[in-house]
């Protein structure tokens, strides 16, 4: 008899009823609860002022909360600050660095500060230099590096002591498209060996790297879901786009006869018709659309299912639809 194997993953982050009020009465985070499992890669999404950076700063021990509990790797952040900080690799939003130092010296200093033993220090520096693609600039002054390289130095610093959890606050902000691709690849590689909490405005980045997203708005959690769950929740059913040739009324009546059709929109485009259809329910309707058109001798040159991007879901959620 086969015994089912159930993998139980520990909680790396456990946040319960977290609240942060700044002096002056501004509530940055209000009653936020979420957890991140060991090995998971979670994206933090939200418009500016949503409370992402505040939450990350509380997790990293830079800020104290005014309510609720925050645990990292089973340790309370407010009581075991030093121990928690040694288990976290944190990249702040602005990626501050000591620009008067050379890359290698900076990483050596940070390794010493984070308690990397002398005998492991050189190998730790070599490892992060290689993983972050910094070997070519190891002897350069940080002041002379491009923004992309500085970002890599920040990430190398965050991972030099082999932390169990990486918290990366907007790691691609201000980078050009090539640098964004490079950093995204790096984060993807890191996600194989670390638990990662990443915040970003670049939603495709979250889409490319994360298992799950947490969406914040005005200090509250709007959604906590996997990307596919999010898509199903915000874009239920199935959207299909067709380019076909034929009489507009004939095509309309034919397609409306299909099962589960919710909406149908046809726009003439020269001698072709651009057709957007929305179906309710789960079954993929493309086969039935194709069969229907084929049987009626309606030529088709395009038929595909429309995949909604995280951008659309994000706009939907944060622009009032699911607002708090």
């Amino acid at each position: 008899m086969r015994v089912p194997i159930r993998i139980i993953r520990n909680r790396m982050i456990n946040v319960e009823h977290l609240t942060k009020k700044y002096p002056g009465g501004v509530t940055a985070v209000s009653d936020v609860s979420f957890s991140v499992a060991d090995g998971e890669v979670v994206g933090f999404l939200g418009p500016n002022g949503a409370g992402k950076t505040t939450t990350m700063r509380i997790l990293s021990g830079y800020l104290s909360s005014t309510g609720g509990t925050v645990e990292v790797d089973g340790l309370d952040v407010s009581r075991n600050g030093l121990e928690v900080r040694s288990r976290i690799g944190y990249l702040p939003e602005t990626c501050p660095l000591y620009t008067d130092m050379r890359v290698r010296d900076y990483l050596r200093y940070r390794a010493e500060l984070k308690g990397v033993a002398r005998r492991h220090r050189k190998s730790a520096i070599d490892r992060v230099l290689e993983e972050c693609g910094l070997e070519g600039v190891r002897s350069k002054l940080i002041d002379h590096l491009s923004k992309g390289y500085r970002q890599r130095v920040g990430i190398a610093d965050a991972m030099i002591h082999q932390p169990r959890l990486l918290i990366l606050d907007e790691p691609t902000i201000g980078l050009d498209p090539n640098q964004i691709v490079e950093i995204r690849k790096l984060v993807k590689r890191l996600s194989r060996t670390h638990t990662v909490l990443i915040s970003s405005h670049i939603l495709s980045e979250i889409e490319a790297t994360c298992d799950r997203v947490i969406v914040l708005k005005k200090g509250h959690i709007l959604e906590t879901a996997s990307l596919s769950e999010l898509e199903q929740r915000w874009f239920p059913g199935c959207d299909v786009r067709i380019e076909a040739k034929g009489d507009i009324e004939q095509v309309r009546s034919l397609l409306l006869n299909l099962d589960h059709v919710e909406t149908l929109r046809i726009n003439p485009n020269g001698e072709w018709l651009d057709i957007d259809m929305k179906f309710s329910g789960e079954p993929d309707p493309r086969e039935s659309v194709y069969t229907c058109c084929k049987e009626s001798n309606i030529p088709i040159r395009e038929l595909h299912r429309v995949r909604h991007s995280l951008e659309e879901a994000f706009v939907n959620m944060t622009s009032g639809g699911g607002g708090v």
Partner: protein
Amino acid sequence: MKRLWVLWRREVAAMVVSPVAYILGAMFLVVMGVGFWFIASVRLINGATLYDFLRALYGGVAWLGVLMVVPVLTMRLFAEETKSGTLELLLTAPVRETEVVFAKFLGALTLYILFWVPTLAYFFLIHQALPEGITLDTGAIASTYLGLFLTGGFALSVGTLCSALTKHTLVACMCTFGLLLLWFLGGFLPAVSPIPAFRAMTEPFSPVLHVLQFSRGIVDTRPIVLYVASTFLLLSITIRVLESRRWRA
């Protein structure tokens, strides 16, 4: 202790690679050198004693040096790190605020001591100029430098606190200078006050009198305790200011 050593090394290295330290050091030595030349040529030639010289140089000119050096040495300690954001990097590493504050203070104190080291050459020059058989009172010289160390340490702790209270280095520099100037000028209160009771009350706190006392070779434990305790008190407040950032920031 190990983290304190790592942080201290970084502080000293940051100051050593900065041109500000060299410009400041040069200016300090020019001020002290001119003061030495002036006092030596006027006083020693006219038959004044070593104690007169020490009193004139360290009770007078040295204050100019302290008021010039300390605000510049301390202004960047926290203000610059707050402004550039590296303080967030520092405080999210596994270090205690106490270690950070003491490392920064000791880093500035190290530079302050290094600035004073070349002035020891003055005594070599005086020694060369003295007639045969007359030796220098090394005890008085040592106590003078002890006084400079204690008052300098206190002044640096004022600067460290000011730097932790703002993110603008210029504001930190001006606040430190203003407070130290008040402290220095306040030291003349016992001398100018016509009220004996007020004089008696303010005398034990006068830094001007303390330095003059040290330059005469008198090592009194009261000013030592006063400066050490005040320095620790101000550094403790700095630690609290840094800790309060976790609620305020």
